[in-house]
């Protein structure tokens, strides 16, 4: 087995992971995700805790310090034994607030403070960089173990590892921007890698215990024999290190960016912790039980100068077991790969959400409330976020690689796992206090974390790089354990003392109430409902999530309130739900800033706070049934109110219409009457006679058209019309509609933007009716678009279920929200005083016709201008048989 073949195997393995992740992503899009969303997959994905540092390094660690290595597994097992009441609470609160990262959690708890998020991200990046370098180092070292003595490996291996893993993270970690940060493809891949590394380690363990030694009893005897030698001094447990390491490992399993990602962000619900609570410790036990046997047997069988970090690999290699060694290599590679990919995704999310995006928004002052008409794309913020994350991944993995190149050696890297643990542990006091103590404040947390991190940086991080000497504390106390204890002590003291003297602002007290009591209070009471602002919120959401997702969210919210259409009332419940959903994408601090900017909402006042707190308390005590009933009542009332409003408006419009229609009918009648009177005159010149007859003819034509329209409508409504379904090319139909609309509404030149390629779709429908609808909508856009240079955009799209969508969007000022529900009614004319002639039947006819074709027509708000969406079914409804 040569390093070249191994490299090829590794590449094939990565390629397989790409395929697997891709398939899982597709399955989740198609809704076949449920079987993969099981507690087993969740538990396996948690194994990303065991990086290459634990896979190879555990034996090296045990060889140097004996049983101490096991603290790295014991800490998490203790935390998971309490999963049911500790972690479950954390997962529940984090899901309630749509937390995206550990920095986001701390920031959200402490009043959505952007600065805490910036600080926590800084610690995470500092701690993660050398840790990532260590993973790349492990792959090179493992390949080196397979090389012949004296054979030089190419120096670019870490670079290719970094490029491959960054590509994986970018492809599957930044594919879309959802309201929850879950990555199904990545989770499935790391779950499978968890199986590979466990199988590899158990295989080599069994081989060592039963193949090389004579079973467990022999291994224990060898350990006892070893304990009498001089080298066993290093194995004696140092109590202060033991305690500190268990605490650190227990903290790390929650707050390390990659662990937070898989444990909390990717968790679909909190019930799975009931299973993971015992299954994950089983995984850790299985992975650690063979460490000590491999250590002692390696010590007995391998030459003294061989690197104990590679015993796992060298033991099977020295016995000529190439197949087993290859499996072990894949296990180690899996550990490195899952760690790098998940870390890159987690840290880059933090970097993008808490560094890049806020900075960019601050720098550019992007106009939030309304999309500028010349904006190049509708989802510009979304691509900004995704690109920020991609940049973050490249930055994070790249700095790991750079660090690896600069440090160059293994010795400085070996302790990096523990150093990273102790760095992230500085976040734990604020996290725990945030979940348990309502009195913990932002200033206290900020002071505690920064002081702790500073001490950690000087006393632990820099010495670990060899840039500073180990600090000499009291004699007999381990410098590492002592430094960590000092950092944590200062951290906790500052947090408590400053919090005790502090008085937090109302917005922060609201968050602390929510986190400690596990309830979701509604945000500050919003201004009285203004649908104009709801539309602005929708426009903002479209720019971040893309139009479809945003529309879906808004429609659901409106439905829940018992309203139709896409614009829900701005109740405080809706606003806080919206803000939390947004936080699931951009982080709490940015979401809060964006929402307040759109709503023009001021800070929360103490009075609001009392209101909210009182309300929450009362709600808790209210009988659930009563609450449900009143909810239902409110919904019905709102529905009634809505239809009442509509009826009143229609009734007045009907009166206006009757006046209008009489007027429209009377004008041609009057002129026909008058001119036919004149025609009766015997001595009229021939040319005059011709002219008057022409006028009568035109006016009669106008009358006919008007009556045709009315007739059309009644035929469609009466259900007596017949359909002539045939297959047509949508492109041809649109082409004709554009030409005809130009004739029917001349005089206003408009630029038509189309995508001819996407338009070539065969549809089965009644072409005449569809053509009429298209002409109507296009003519409307030409008539009513009030932009100085009208642009009409036509886009078409075919859904997987066979539906066809046609969007016609103009760049005018759109339709006011309070009129949007009325436009499809008969007799509706938006601006009574308009100079544009017409009886207001166009859209009513369109709606009837689309219904007749089995489709729908809807007004889509928040698109910058007026946007009408026609949806055609795959097949027109089967013709009903008229009697």
């Amino acid at each position, binding site marked *: 087995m040569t390093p070249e073949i191994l490299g090829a195997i590794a590449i094939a393995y990565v390629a397989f992971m790409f395929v697997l992740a891709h398939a899982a992503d597709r399955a989740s899009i198609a809704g076949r995700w449920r079987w993969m969303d099981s507690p087993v997959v969740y538990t396996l994905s948690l194994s990303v805790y065991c990086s290459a540092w634990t896979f190879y390094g555990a034996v090296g660690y045990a060889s140097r310090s*004996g*049983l101490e290595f*096991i603290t790295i597994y*014991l800490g998490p*097992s*203790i*935390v998971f*034994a*309490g*999963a*049911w*009441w*500790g972690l479950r*609470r954390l997962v529940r609160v984090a899901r309630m607030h749509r937390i995206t990262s550990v920095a986001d959690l701390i920031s959200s708890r402490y009043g959505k403070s952007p600065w805490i998020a910036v600080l926590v991200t800084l610690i995470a990046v500092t701690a993660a960089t050398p840790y990532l370098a260590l993973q790349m180092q492990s792959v090179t070292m493992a390949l080196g173990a397979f090389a012949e003595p004296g054979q030089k490996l190419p120096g670019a291996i870490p670079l290719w590892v970094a490029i491959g893993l960054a590509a994986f993270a970018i492809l599957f970690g930044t594919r879309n921007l959802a309201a929850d940060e879950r990555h199904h493809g990545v989770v499935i891949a790391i779950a499978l890698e968890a199986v590979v590394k466990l199988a590899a380690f158990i295989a080599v363990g069994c081989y060592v215990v039963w193949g090389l030694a004579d079973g467990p009893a022999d291994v*224990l005897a060898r*350990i*006892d024999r*070893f*304990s009498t030698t001089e080298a*066993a001094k290093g*194995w*004696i*447990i*140092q*109590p202060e290190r*033991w*305690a500190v390491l*268990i605490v650190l490992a227990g903290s790390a399993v929650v707050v390390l960016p990659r662990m937070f990602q898989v444990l909390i962000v990717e968790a679909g619900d909190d*019930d799975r912790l*009931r*299973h993971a*609570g*015992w299954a994950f*410790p*089983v995984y850790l*036990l299985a992975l650690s*039980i063979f460490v*000590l046997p491999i250590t002692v047997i390696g010590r007995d069988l391998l030459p003294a100068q061989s690197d104990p970090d590679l015993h796992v690999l060298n033991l099977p290699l020295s016995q000529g077991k190439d197949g087993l060694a290859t499996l072990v290599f894949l296990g180690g590679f899996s550990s490195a790969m899952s760690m790098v990919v998940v870390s890159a995704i987690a840290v880059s999310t933090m970097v993008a959400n808490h560094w890049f995006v806020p900075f960019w928004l601050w720098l550019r002052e992007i106009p939030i409330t309304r999309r500028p008409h010349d904006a190049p794309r509708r989802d510009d913020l979304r691509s900004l976020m995704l690109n920020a994350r991609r940049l973050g991944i490249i930055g994070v993995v790249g700095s790991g690689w750079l660090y690896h190149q600069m440090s160059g050696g293994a010795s400085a890297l070996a302790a990096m796992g523990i150093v990273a643990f102790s760095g992230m542990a500085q976040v734990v006091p604020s996290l725990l206090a945030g979940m348990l103590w*309502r*009195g913990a404040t932002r200033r206290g947390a900020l002071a505690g974390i920064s002081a702790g991190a500073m001490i950690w940086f000087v006393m632990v991080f820099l010495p670990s790089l060899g840039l500073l000497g180990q600090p000499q504390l009291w004699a007999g106390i381990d410098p590492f354990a002592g430094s960590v204890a000092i950092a944590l002590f200062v951290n906790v003291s500052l947090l408590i003392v400053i919090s005790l003297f502090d008085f937090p602002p109302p917005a922060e007290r609201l968050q602390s*109430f929510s986190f400690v*009591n*596990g309830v979701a209070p509604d945000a500050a009471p919003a201004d009285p409902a203004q649908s104009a602002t709801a539309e602005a919120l929708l426009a903002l959401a479209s720019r971040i999530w893309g139009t479809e997702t945003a529309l879906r969210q808004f429609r659901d919210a409106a439905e829940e309130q018992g309203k139709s259409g896409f614009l829900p009332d701005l109740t405080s419940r809706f606003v806080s739900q919206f803000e939390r959903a947004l936080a699931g994408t951009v982080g709490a601090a940015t979401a809060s800033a964006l929402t307040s900017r759109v709503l023009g909402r001021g800070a929360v006042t103490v009075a609001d706070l*009392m209101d909210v*707190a009182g309300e929450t*308390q009362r709600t*808790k*005590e209210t009988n659930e049934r009563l609450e449900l009933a009143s909810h239902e009542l409110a919904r019905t009332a709102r529905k009634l109110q809505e239809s009442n409003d509509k009826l009143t408006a229609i009734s007045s419009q009907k009166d206006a219409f009757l006046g209008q229609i009489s007027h429209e009918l009377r004008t041609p009648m009057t002129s026909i009457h008058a001119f036919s009177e004149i025609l009766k005159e015997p001595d009229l010149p021939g040319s005059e006679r011709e002219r008057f007859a022409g006028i009568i003819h035109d006016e009669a034509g106008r009358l006919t058209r008007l009556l045709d329209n009315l007739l059309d409508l009644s035929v469609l409504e009466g259900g007596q019309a017949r359909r002539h379904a045939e297959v047509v090319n949508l492109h041809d139909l649109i082409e004709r509609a554009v030409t005809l609309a130009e004739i029917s509404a001349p005089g206003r030149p408009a630029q038509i933007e189309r995508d001819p390629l996407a338009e070539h779709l065969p549809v089965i429908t009644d072409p005449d009716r569809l053509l009429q609808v298209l002409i109507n909508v296009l003519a409307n856009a030409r008539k009513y678009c009030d932009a100085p240079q009208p642009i009409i955009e036509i886009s078409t799209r075919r859904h997987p279920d066979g539906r066809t969508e046609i969007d016609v969007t103009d760049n005018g000022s759109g339709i006011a929200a309070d009129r949007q529900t009325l436009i499809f009614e008969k007799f509706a004319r938006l601006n009574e005083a308009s100079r544009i002639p017409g009886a207001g039947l166009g859209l009513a006819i369109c709606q009837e016709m689309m219904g007749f074709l089995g489709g729908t027509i809807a007004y889509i708000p928040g698109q910058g201008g007026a946007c009408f969406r026609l949806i055609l079914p795959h097949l027109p409804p089967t013709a009903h048989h008229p009697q």
Partner: protein
Amino acid sequence: MRGRVPEHFLERGAYRRRRIEEAARMVPVVFALLTLLPMLWRPAQMSFSFGAVWLVSVWAITILISAILFRMLGRSQPDPPSADTSLATEPADDA
């Protein structure tokens, strides 16, 4: 002030469930003490084979007990909201 009189006594099923919850809360504390105290008290004796066997046994027993407790908690949990009672009944401190 609460509008409703808090329940002082529970029927058998809920009573049993409370006790299981308390046991589940105790497991990590006991586990932590069993892995910490012997090591702090007699580091020299616990550093080799006896320590390894001790840790692995304690660990395996803890896993077994927590698996049983979590399973019982899941089974006696017909409706999700009831899991909230422990949070909801905690008195609110400053408001």
